[in-house]
């Protein structure tokens, strides 16, 4: 035991040695601190060349596809726009009723009414028409791939990594190749949305089909079912719940991608509206439009989730035709009635402009009032976070501490005290037997002093690789090293560091705060009940919308991005924190109570260590959410890879955008694998079965 422990320890000491050496030498050897431009592998140029070639020789094909797809989109769009709003609303309300009852129906009605009254009906229907086309496509494609992956192990081995990639590539980077291939227009939104939304359908289909119990299959076989009957009458219906869950997730993904894709413009949809208003810094308008998206997301989510979990999903038995198709009949008759009435009562057809309500001016002036009156406080928060949290992480204490920021200059005495403190802590921890903790403190100490941006890249690559080795073994180490070297060699390292820095701070803060809230919620029903709807709402909210409140108060900049990321990434931390603590085996808690653990001993020495693997899965999700939001946060001015992706998208520079996008995907995948491997390892050590 101690033997292996020492070996790990010396590996890490070696890493620290190399790091210190690099720091020492980087003054003389410039390539250590900055990867030389001459050495950059022109991957983006190659990619551009390939893309040019494809566009030149098979562009006609994609344009053809694009042309074909325009038709159904336009058709749905024309229909939705031509229908009187009262008819559409009525149908949605009936569907909502069928899915979950009159409460949801009422909510749907109020939401739709809001869209009408606030004057965003037209834009909303344009968004809805894209979703309406993309969801069925995603379902069919996702289901087919799911079935294929279910039947063929080999297919599954190809499909799964593909899905991983589709879901980790930054959303904006999706749009780039599609834009190149299919040309400007609504089709880009459609295709991006289908590509983004079919993976959850595939996963759920596979999980669902796998989950059918063997005895159910055997009883189907013993009933004499043919292969086809077995599939369609046994496997599919008995996994319907899971498959419908896939439909729910696919629909949400589709909506969020449709919104994101509106960044390309020319769609006249609600996402575009929000974006324009944000760019014009119109608080009221953007919030009103953002609310439309949020409501739309919630209604669609509740309806599809309701369909998935409905208890009488499988209605059969003796029923008359009318009983069976009651709701269909009501929907059809109601639509006709409303359609006819709308011909006479014009407001039911087209809501008159004069009746629209526009509270945006009032909202804008109250915001102005707020900002003017609380300017000192707002500025203080911003400055504090910037000087004491963000700057040190970015450029290190070495540069962040100055009379202008911290009120004093960093003297040699300070440096010696800092070094002594760190070394003292390391020695203390090591002597107490927790070498791992000691090593973490040592490396953090170095990074905080020099700042992430001030660390030589070879040192960071090495730290990453060794961490991969210790957590997940040689494969993970090699993968990490290769991934990071790709970023280095494509010349996007410094931007990558800025992404990591921003996302890293957000993730740490979200995880700490989120876990604390989660732990609290696990012990207190009231807190749990209060937190849950917040989480649900934040999670269904399309990412754009989250930016709005922060950008309005704190203006454009990294701090705003940080807050927006935290707002989104805190959700899984809370959820997993609560879940981890709540799902501990009772026997353990009882045993600990019996040996007389105090409340705090119970929490720190029993519950948290045992819940840690689950909380690590939460950390994993926190990171993924953080990265997803980081991409969107490029809109409010950040400087990392996400910004390059965004610029690549607006300039139409395929190669640059994609290389940066792949860089982000690499970071996401490394973080994902590391946290997962760690969680699995811990769970095995604790003798818990990995969930």
């Amino acid at each position, binding site marked *: 035991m101690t033997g292996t422990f020492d070996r790990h320890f010396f590996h890490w000491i070696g890493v620290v040695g190399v790091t210190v050496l690099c720091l020492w030498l980087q003054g003389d050897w410039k390539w250590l601190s900055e990867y030389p431009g001459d050495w950059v592998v022109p991957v983006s140029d190659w990619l551009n060349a390939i893309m040019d070639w494809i566009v030149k020789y098979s562009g006609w094909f994609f344009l053809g596809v694009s042309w074909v797809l325009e038709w159904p989109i336009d058709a749905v769009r024309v229909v939705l726009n031509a229908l009187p709003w009262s008819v559409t609303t009525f149908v949605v309300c009936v569907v909502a009723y069928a899915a979950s009852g009159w409460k949801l129906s009422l909510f749907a009605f109020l939401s739709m009414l809001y869209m009408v009254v606030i004057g965003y009906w037209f834009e909303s229907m344009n968004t809805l028409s894209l979703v309406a086309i993309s969801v069925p496509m995603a379902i069919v494609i996702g289901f087919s791939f799911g079935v294929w992956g279910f039947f063929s192990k080999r297919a599954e081995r190809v499909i799964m990594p593909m899905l991983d990639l589709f879901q980790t590539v930054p959303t904006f980077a999706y749009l780039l190749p599609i834009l190149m291939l299919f040309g400007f227009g609504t089709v880009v939104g459609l295709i991006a949305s289908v590509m983004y939304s079919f993976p959850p359908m595939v996963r759920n289909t596979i999980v669902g089909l796998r989950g059918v119990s063997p005895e*159910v299959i055997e009883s189907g076989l*013993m*009933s*004499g079912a043919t292969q086809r009957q077995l599939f369609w*009458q046994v496997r599919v*219906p008995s996994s319907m719940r899971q498959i419908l869950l896939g439909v729910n997730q696919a629909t949400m993904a589709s909506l969020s991608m449709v919104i994101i894709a509106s960044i390309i413009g020319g769609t006249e949809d609600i996402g575009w509206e929000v974006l324009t208003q944000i760019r014009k810094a119109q608080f009221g308008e953007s919030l009103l439009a953002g609310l439309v998206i949020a409501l739309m997301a919630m209604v669609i989510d509740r309806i599809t989730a309701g369909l998935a979990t409905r208890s009488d999903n*499988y209605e*059969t038995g003796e029923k008359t035709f009318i009983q069976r198709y009651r709701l269909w009949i009501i929907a059809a008759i109601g639509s006709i009635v409303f359609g006819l009435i709308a011909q006479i009562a014009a407001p039911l057809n087209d809501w008159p402009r004069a009746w629209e309500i526009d509270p945006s001016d009032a909202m804008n002036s109250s915001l102005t009032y707020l900002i003017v009156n609380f300017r000192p406080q707002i500025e203080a928060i911003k400055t504090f976070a910037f000087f004491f949290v963000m700057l040190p992480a970015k450029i290190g204490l070495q540069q962040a501490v100055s009379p202008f920021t911290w009120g004093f200059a960093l003297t040699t005495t300070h440096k010696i005290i800092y070094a002594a403190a760190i070394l003292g802590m390391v020695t203390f921890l090591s002597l107490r037997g927790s070498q791992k903790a000691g090593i973490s403190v040592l490396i953090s100490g170095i990074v905080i002093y020099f700042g992430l941006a001030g660390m030589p890249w070879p040192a960071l690559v090495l730290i990453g690789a060794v961490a991969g080795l210790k957590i997940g073994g040689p494969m993970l180490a090699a993968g990490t090293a290769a991934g990071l070297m790709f970023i280095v060699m494509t010349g996007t390292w410094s931007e990558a560091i800025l992404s990591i820095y921003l996302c890293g701070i957000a993730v740490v803060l979200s995880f700490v705060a989120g876990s604390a809230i989660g732990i609290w919620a696990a012990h207190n029903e009231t807190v749990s009940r209060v937190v849950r709807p917040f989480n649900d709402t934040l999670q269904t909210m399309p990412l754009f919308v989250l930016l709005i409140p922060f950008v309005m108060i704190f203006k454009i900049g990294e701090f705003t991005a940080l807050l927006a990321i935290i707002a989104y990434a805190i959700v899984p931390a809370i959820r997993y924190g609560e879940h981890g603590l709540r799902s501990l085996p009772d026997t353990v808690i009882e045993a600990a109570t019996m040996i007389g653990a105090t409340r705090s001993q119970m929490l720190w020495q029993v519950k948290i260590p045992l819940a840690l693997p689950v909380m690590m899965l939460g950390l994993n999700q926190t990171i993924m959410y953080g990265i997803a939001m980081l991409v969107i946060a490029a809109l409010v001015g950040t400087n990392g890879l996400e910004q390059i992706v965004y610029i690549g998208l607006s300039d139409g520079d395929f190669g640059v955008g994609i290389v940066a996008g792949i860089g982000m995907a690499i970071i996401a995948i490394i973080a994902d694998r590391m946290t997962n491997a760690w969680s699995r390892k811990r769970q095995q050590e604790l003798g818990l079965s990995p969930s």
Partner: protein
Amino acid sequence: MKTSTGDLNTVKLSCRNVWKVYGQQPDQFFNSAEGKVENAAALSSRILNNDHILANADVSFDVHVGEIFVIMGLSGSGKSTIVRCLSRLVEPTAGEILLDGEDLLKKTDAELIDIRRHKMGMVFQSFGLMPHLNVIDNIAFPLKIQGIAEADRYAQASRVIELVGLQGRENNYPRELSGGQQQRVGIARSLAVEPDVWFLDEPFSALDPLIRKQMQDEFLRIQSKLHKSIVFITHDFQEALRIADRMAIMRDGAIVQIGRPVDLILSPADDYIREFTQDVPWESILRAADIAKPTRKKTANLPVVNEDALVETLLSQLASSADGVAVKAADGSILGVASAQSLAAALASGVSSTAVDE
């Protein structure tokens, strides 16, 4: 309650030298599809030494028409596997399975589907009900698969629902039923197609003891009406005793002993069998015939008892009559004399096999 095996001469289902091997290359151990080998024990150890899993080793037995054949054994002894071989849910690695004298393993997929649709029914340990169908549709499912019209299949389903006593629950979903009720649905479903052969894989193991007892009675009642040929799996010896006409005990994939329950109690083949049988209350198992000793002495002045009288009921007579009692067979002839001494001898398990076989 029990039908004796003597009058059931027609074999319904039989399996001959069935082997089932899991692993990389299960076929390598067999030269032909037939599982007849010179030395089964040697082959078994060769298979195990080659890192393969031996689920069934050289299993042979017959199930007669109208007979309840019980298979017992510890967990992992291969009970489920053999019953799945019989229904070809699992493909045996070697061996023969004969249903009505025809080799089941040679049937094409289409023929097999047909056989399952009309001749076989199966009940599963954890019920295997379709979660998306209510009770009546679950029961009618095998009929639906056959393409029978809705009205006809509901009519047939209602008949079996009555048989298992589930009237009134037709429109409930499985999740709304208790374990016992769910298994009634499972039983009804397996009977809906009126099969000849009925497989039950630990049908009552998931139920609590009281319900289990009740379900066993129910099962025997149904069988007394329908006279199916049954393969019933259990790991509960009491259950086996209550229902078995004959039974087999398995260990490590092989059958250790086959016989009537009482044979297994009175002359266990080895300690493994004795483990199973030792806690059995003998007085509720032994019958007069089992302890009767043939005699040439005159029996006219002895009290006479029927051959199938439980020893339990004879105890006071045996205690008071030093010469024992005369045991009369169904045809009126005298089998022999049962005495306190012969009882003691039987209990000592030294009972001569002749006494049992007669």
